[in-house]
């Protein structure tokens, strides 16, 4: 009764708009300045699915940390729905490159982390169960992280993010450690989830094909310091097929931008 009311009371979480305006960032390494982001501007519509592609070490994870509010940019501003991003907020949830599960918590308790931190766990326990169901790990709710495989840990991290109903879901190569089969299943899950909930998605990936199967829009970054090199719309209905010649064409184009034109 109470839970049903609560569900009606909370409006369906829609995506938020994200504006990245002339953001530059640099790290100090032993006194020397290492520029990582150079004048990056990007405007993401509510509910868009944006994939970020770029060479390793160019600054993708750094940009995601800025969006999450974990770090402040050296220059420029980031806004979520016109509100300046100054600190982390559970409306923007990150799935990090490493799963970073808390080893002292069971799988269930790890997934419950966000609800517990926000003080709503007591009334919303079913959301944890639902999220675990979603990633297919209900049987492992009492397991500890050291008992999981790398791919399972990655799925728990995904469930831990999804349970919070984020407005912007920030994914840093979340499927990188999965085997190709689970990966394809999880990609389909991700798309259907995104379509159902309507959150804005930012996905960093190394895999051009993954970017094209999942995203509305693919941003290609240059080498460090990262600049936006190309902004490609992918106007194809879902579910998409890997063999689609239109996507194959875009893929060739993207790999060319990443400097692989000769071999492909």
């Amino acid at each position, binding site marked *: 009764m109470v839970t049903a009311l609560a569900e009606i009371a909370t409006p369906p979480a829609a995506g938020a708009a994200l504006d990245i305006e002339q953001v530059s960032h640099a790290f100090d390494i032993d006194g020397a300045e290492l520029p990582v982001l150079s004048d990056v501007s990007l405007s993401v519509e509510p509910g868009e699915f944006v994939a970020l592609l770029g060479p390793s070490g160019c600054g993708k994870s750094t940009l995601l*940390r800025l969006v*999450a*509010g*974990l770090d402040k940019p050296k220059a420029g501003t980031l806004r979520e729905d016109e509100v300046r991003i100054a*600190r*982390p*907020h*559970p409306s*923007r*949830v*990150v799935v*990090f490159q*490493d799963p*970073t599960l*808390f*080893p*002292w*918590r069971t799988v269930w308790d790890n997934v419950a*982390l*966000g609800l*517990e*931190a*926000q003080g709503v766990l007591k009334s919303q326990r079913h959301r944890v169960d639902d999220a675990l169901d979603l990633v297919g790990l209900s049987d492992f709710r009492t397991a*500890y*992280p*050291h008992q999981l495989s790398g791919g399972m840990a990655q799925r728990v991290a995904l469930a*831990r993010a999804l349970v*919070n109903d984020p407005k912007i879901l920030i994914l840093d190569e979340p499927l990188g450690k999965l085997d190709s089969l689970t990966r394809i299943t999880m990609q389909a899950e991700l798309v259907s989830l995104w379509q159902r909930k309507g959150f804005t998605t930012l996905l960093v990936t190394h895999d051009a094909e993954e970017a094209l199967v999942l995203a509305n829009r693919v941003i290609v970054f240059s080498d460090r310091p990262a600049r936006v090199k190309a902004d490609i719309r992918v106007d194809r209905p879902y579910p998409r097929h890997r063999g689609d010649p239109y996507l194959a064409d875009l893929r060739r184009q993207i790999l060319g931008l990443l400097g692989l034109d000769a071999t492909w």
Partner: protein
Amino acid sequence: MSTYSLSDGIASGAPRLSRAPVLASWLRESGVGVLAGVAWIAFGLSCLWWEDLGDWSRTHSLGIAAFIVAAIALFGTVGADYLGSAGKALRQRAPWLVALGAFLTLWEVATAKFAWLPLPFFPPPQSIIEVYTDDLPKLLDSVFASVKLQLGGYLIGATVGFLTGVSIGWSRAVGYWVHPVLRFIGPLPATAWLPIAFFTFPSSWSASTFLIALATGFPVTVLTWSGVASVSNAYYDVARTLGAKPSFLVLKVAIPAALPHVFVGLFMGLGSSFAVLVVAEMIGVKAGLGWYLQWAQGWAAYANMYAALIVMALLCSGAITLLFAIRDRLLVWQKGTVKW
């Protein structure tokens, strides 16, 4: 071809070997048990066969007790298959029973019967038993006093140390003030404070509690602090993006992540607080096992000293075991922890 010859070899070898393994396995499983029985019978006989050189009242009972142990060892290990887990446990400990029986026999013969070891300094087993039966009230009082003092001091020291460690690890301001003090005073052995503590504190009991707390507190503080300081930033990042407030970061991230370090500190604190306890009891407090030891020495009651030492060893070992059990409970999530 080679497979044929191999299976032939096995087939022809099997019947010849069939009796020997049965005997061998019986010997392996029960042989040690029989040996244990023999060792304890030997101990019992060594008690009863010769006359005691001194005047000890428990020699006869000790001999009987040795025979009972022998019987338990013998039937327990031979019939282990019918005794379930108790039988299995007994079998596992059978080699120790052999060693113990042999040692006690040697001890008995070397002291009470032939005095190969100088007598007042090396009392026989029966005189230690005599202490436990005849001086029990005083010994129990001492145990109670020691446990009370140790427990109070240790709990205070561990709590204060833990809270201090978390505060230093968490807050720069607290670290700024506490860290130098800790560096200056911490490494000083707590016993160095003994003379000052005994005349500044209102009672020797409160002085000792303070010293035990001090000995416990230093390692607990340092290790809690280093535990909190070494928590990976990635954990805080995850928690913060999920909406965690600072109190959550301390209570649900920093402390659980630091807990393995905290336990190392608790173990070290326990060890050094035992040392302080005994010294404090010997010097200032008029109760406890340390005082009992001192008192026994004054009367040249060497049997009482050994008896008290054995009790002390059991208590210290029991405390460590208890701490291990608590750690294993709280840190089930860790893989490959040391078994005590």
